């Protein structure tokens, strides 16, 4: 009784004060709201994992293998233990009994070989950078110092670096005793009669493309803090997947799941690189368990380049059969995918995510796909922005470009003849996916207009006629992708170890404010803002009255986290579903309080009103009423809060048309992007500002693969691009401004009408850029330039192709001033951008007025 009275008193005071929010009629979804997240980020009040300092915290440093493949024959850590500040030193044998094996959650086939993967190597190392020992010390400097005192003897074994050689019978084996040699798995998929499609096909295009190895490079290096009170454990990690990580760590370490809390504080980007269960996370937990003290490990960038998983690294053989009129009959793909030394969380699944996308947006009679995963003595590959889909899109869009050239057809026209028309949606593809909606015609028309396609084609012809040393190329990429991972049943059919649902809770606080708990785990995507917009509209509360909580398993107990462009289309929809449940409960309460039938109560703009009267209750009043709980319907729980778990019925299929106009200096090999136009269709848009930002960043990463980035190993398996000085992340001076626009064809498979956007730009842009480079060089007989299209590679392609009789002259050597063009081995890391040393190409303004200004002309490498 007393308790109830107190609560009532509090409720009265809240009601009398200004604290109780008022409904909002503002339409939030679709507004370019500035982000709530920014306040802490622009002022430096963030909580990056490395910012966390706990009393008594120790620092961990890892000694790492200097060899790509070797047997560990002797380890002596005794001298290191005597170094100042050192608390403990362990090698793999010390931890062998408790460290378990790092998990692979995607055993793609029955024949898949999942080798034991100790977090710290015990007997054998299989890539440069693999952890072999660790030091725990009082500060980071002392921990690093003591590593020098550890002695390890290695017996070298043969490195295995080339996928094709690795599959030969005589190849040394990455995993001794593996009956399948270095083959991790073979996975096949087909639709239609591929033999029939190729039989008597008038045109067959056959190409091999190299998807170079990439280093994802989120700006925040990985970091882990682990602590225990002796009973339960807390792990802070720069991770994309706190929920998945918690489950996996419980299974790996034996710490019961309910005794383990995982927190992803502010996380500085991921791009797939933090979609992982890492050796360092497992080891940090083991160390805090052993020592009873908090430990922290933060990688240096060089350490991260060596040891955080890499991306791409596939060898793609694609064949396209077509009729003379351009109609595609069938596509056959044979893929080798470099797994690296072990199968990590979804390593073998990455190429499968591309398997259903090599048909792109096109209709065809048959499709056949075979992928072989191959072990090499390199750091494992795993998800990197797009994960499988950029590879697939690159291959089909490059092949379509080649087919158009073969047929003498405009590449846009070829696509028109093959794409699914907007009247044909929903359309079930040869791969069995049902694309719910799209309008490829509209996006393409808009993109062509924005670029000034015809005018640039005319300029291209003019430059060819004039034999201009700077040739112009126009690259086309009309893409779609499957994202919004994913319907759980489909994931099950692909042997993935978990579902694809997402969870949300909506809590109505007594003062009418709203807490939203999401199982998505943002690391730059702006969920706090976008989810607030969804909730504001759904509940009719002010945008400012919504807080979004995430990234802590103690706060958000259930989640599937953030990757695969899934957050909005799965997690955002879960938030909406939870809001609907809140509203249904509130409607019952409102009817009770208004003495009306629930059927007669309408909801609009945050107020429940009896139909035909002006009498109503705001959602804030109803929230307060459940707090007081003095007058509720019989049997009504005193709460409006609701949980929802949403499992999508289908993938999400954003699409778009990306066009790149590139100037290629045939004398220096320098490539300058003169204009880049992207028209994306991501369905309905919650926040256009965030969508535009995602597209911009995605394009930049796709351009980076096309022109700049490659992880390069030497013949012994040493990573030559182990620092940011050697692995060329593009700077502002290396990229143009991007012109972006959208068409909106709402998704029909979720109530928000939204489609994923996080990976779209990356998936679309790489082939657009390479198609532009190749298009510029067609007069020289060049049909391909391997990525990244560095000045050296472009120059060599021009030089080695020779000069056709009617083509432009091939003249000169690479510009001596260009360090990139002058660097030695193919694939060597560039120290400058392709723009470095590029002469002024004259008239950047001659194109369409909508084109962006190509940047970087004359820019120098500076201190990079």
């Amino acid at each position, binding site marked *: 009784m007393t308790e109830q009275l107190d609560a009532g008193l509090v409720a009265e005071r809240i009601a009398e004060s200004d604290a109780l929010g008022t409904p909002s009629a503002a339409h939030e979804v679709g*507004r*370019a709201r*500035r*982000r*709530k997240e*920014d*306040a802490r*980020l*622009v*002022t*430096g*009040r*963030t909580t*990056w994992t*490395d*910012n966390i*300092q706990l009393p008594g915290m120790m620092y961990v440093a890892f000694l790492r293998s200097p060899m790509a493949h070797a047997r560990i024959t002797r380890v002596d850590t005794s001298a290191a233990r005597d170094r100042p500040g050192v608390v403990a030193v362990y090698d793999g044998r010390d931890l062998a009994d408790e460290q378990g094996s790092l998990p692979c959650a995607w055993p793609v086939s029955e024949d898949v070989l999942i080798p034991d993967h100790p977090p710290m190597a015990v007997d054998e190392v299989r890539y440069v950078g693999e952890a072999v020992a660790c030091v725990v010390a009082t500060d980071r*400097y002392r921990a690093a110092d003591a590593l020098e005192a550890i002695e390890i003897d290695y017996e070298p074994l043969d490195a295995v670096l080339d996928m094709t050689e690795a599959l030969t019978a005589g190849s040394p084996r990455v995993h001794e005793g593996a009956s399948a040699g270095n083959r991790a798995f073979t996975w096949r998929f087909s639709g239609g009669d591929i033999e029939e499609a190729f039989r008597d096909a008038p045109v067959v295009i056959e190409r091999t493309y190299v998807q170079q190895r990439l280093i994802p*490079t*989120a*700006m*925040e290096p990985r970091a882990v803090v682990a602590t225990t009170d002796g009973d339960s454990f807390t792990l802070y990690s720069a991770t994309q997947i706190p929920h998945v990580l918690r489950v996996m760590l419980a299974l790996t370490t034996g710490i019961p799941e309910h005794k383990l809390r995982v927190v992803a504080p502010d*996380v500085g*980007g991921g791009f797939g690189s933090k979609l992982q269960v890492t050796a360092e996370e497992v080891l940090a937990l083991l160390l805090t368990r052993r020592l009873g003290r908090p430990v922290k490990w933060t990688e*240096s*960038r*060089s350490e991260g380049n060596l040891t955080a998983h890499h991306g791409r690294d596939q060898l793609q053989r694609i064949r396209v059969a077509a009729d003379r009129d351009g109609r595609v009959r069938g596509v056959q793909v044979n893929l080798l995918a470099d797994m690296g030394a072990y199968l990590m969380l979804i390593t073998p699944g990455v190429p499968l995510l591309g398997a259903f996308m090599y048909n792109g947006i096109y209709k065809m009679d048959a499709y056949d796909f075979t992928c072989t995963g191959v072990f090499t003595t390199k750091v494992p590959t795993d998800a990197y922005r797009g994960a499988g889909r950029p590879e697939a899109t690159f291959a089909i869009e490059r092949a379509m470009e080649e087919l158009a050239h073969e047929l003498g057809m405009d590449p846009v026209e070829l696509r028109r003849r093959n794409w699914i028309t907007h009247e044909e949606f929903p359309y079930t593809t040869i791969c069995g996916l049902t694309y719910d909606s799209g309008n490829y015609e509209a996006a393409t028309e808009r993109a062509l207009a924005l670029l000034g396609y015809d005018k640039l084609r005319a300029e291209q012809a003019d430059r060819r006629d004039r034999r201009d040393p700077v040739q112009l190329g126009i690259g086309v990429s009309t893409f779609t992708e499957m994202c919004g991972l994913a319907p759980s049943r489909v994931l099950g059919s692909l042997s993935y170890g978990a579902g694809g649902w997402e969870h949300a809770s909506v809590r109505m606080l007594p003062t009418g404010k709203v807490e939203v708990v999401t199982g998505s785990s943002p*690391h730059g995507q*702006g969920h706090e803002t976008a989810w607030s917009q969804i909730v504001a509209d759904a509940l009719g509360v002010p945008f400012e009255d919504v807080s979004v909580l995430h990234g802590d398993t103690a706060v958000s107990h259930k989640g599937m986290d953030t990757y695969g462009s899934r957050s909005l289309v799965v997690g955002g929809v879960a938030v909406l579903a939870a809001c609907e449940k809140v509203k249904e409960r509130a409607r019952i309460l409102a009817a009770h309080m208004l003495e009306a039938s629930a059927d007669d109560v309408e909801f609009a703009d945050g107020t429940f009103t009896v139909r035909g009267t002006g009498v109503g209750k705001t959602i804030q009043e109803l929230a307060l009423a459940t707090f007081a709980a003095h007058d509720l319907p019989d049997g009504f729980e005193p709460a409006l809060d609701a949980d929802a778990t949403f499992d999508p019925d289908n993938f999400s299929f954003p699409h778009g048309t990306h066009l790149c106009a590139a100037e290629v200096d045939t004398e220096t090999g320098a490539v300058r992007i003169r204009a880049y136009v992207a028209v994306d269709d991501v369905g309905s*848009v919650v926040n256009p*500002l*965030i969508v*535009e*930002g995602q597209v*911009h*960043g*995605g394009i*930049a990463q796709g351009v980076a693969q096309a022109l700049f980035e490659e992880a390069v190993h030497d013949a012994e398996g040493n990573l030559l691009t182990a*620092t*940011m*000085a050697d692995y060329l*992340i593009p*700077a*502002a*001076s290396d990229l143009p*401004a*991007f*012109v*972006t*626009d*959208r068409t909106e064809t709402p998704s029909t498979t979720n109530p928000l009408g939204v489609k994923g956007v996080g990976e779209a730009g990356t998936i679309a842009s790489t082939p657009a850029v390479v198609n532009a480079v190749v298009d510029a060089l067609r007069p020289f007989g060049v049909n391909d330039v391997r990525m990244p299209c560095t000045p050296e590679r472009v120059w060599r392609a021009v030089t080695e192709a020779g000069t056709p009789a009617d083509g432009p002259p091939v003249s000169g050597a690479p510009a001596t001033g260009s360090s990139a063009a002058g660097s030695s081995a193919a694939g060597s890391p560039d120290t400058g951008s392709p723009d470095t040393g590029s002469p002024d190409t004259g008239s950047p303004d001659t194109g369409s007025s*909508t084109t*962006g*200004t190509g*940047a*970087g002309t004359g*820019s120098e490498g*500076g*201190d*990079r």
Partner: protein
Amino acid sequence: MPRTSLTVDGVRYDEEVEPRLLLVHLLRDRLGRTGTPVGCDTSNCGACTVLLDGVSVKSCSVLAVQADGSDVVTVEGLAEGTEWHPMQRAFHEEHALQCGYCTPGMIMAAIDLLRDDPDPSEEAVRAGLEGNLCRCTGYTNIVRAVRRGAREMSRPDGERETAGPSATPGPGAARQETEGQVRTP
């Protein structure tokens, strides 16, 4: 052990430091100024950029002892009370950050850039920021933000936009809240 005396965001510190201690680790691990992050170990990324006596430096490439007698301003020292620096507001308004890890360094470098060129062209901004890497934004919005910040900083104090957070969108908000538009840089 050597001593270093320096001012960080208006507070004077006297610290005994190892000669090898990097300024950024002094700031982060000793002084708790964690607003300045570390993104690499080769001074390429610029995330750790601070102003040292008014000039931008990468604090991973400065020894703490080198900062002796200096005035250090980090991103945490830019705002005046609750009022953000115009460059902080510009980054917010132009959506020039996503994960935000590069943002402190990007803002500090941008402020330094404007010392020499108070009204930089797009090309000048791109060239001036080439020592700062961002992996999220593709730079288009960063360039817009720096130019917007420059315009704001050149206006007399009374005419500037009011304080920061999103409650009060600036004049650009209306323009950008139009959907589906194409902006030419």
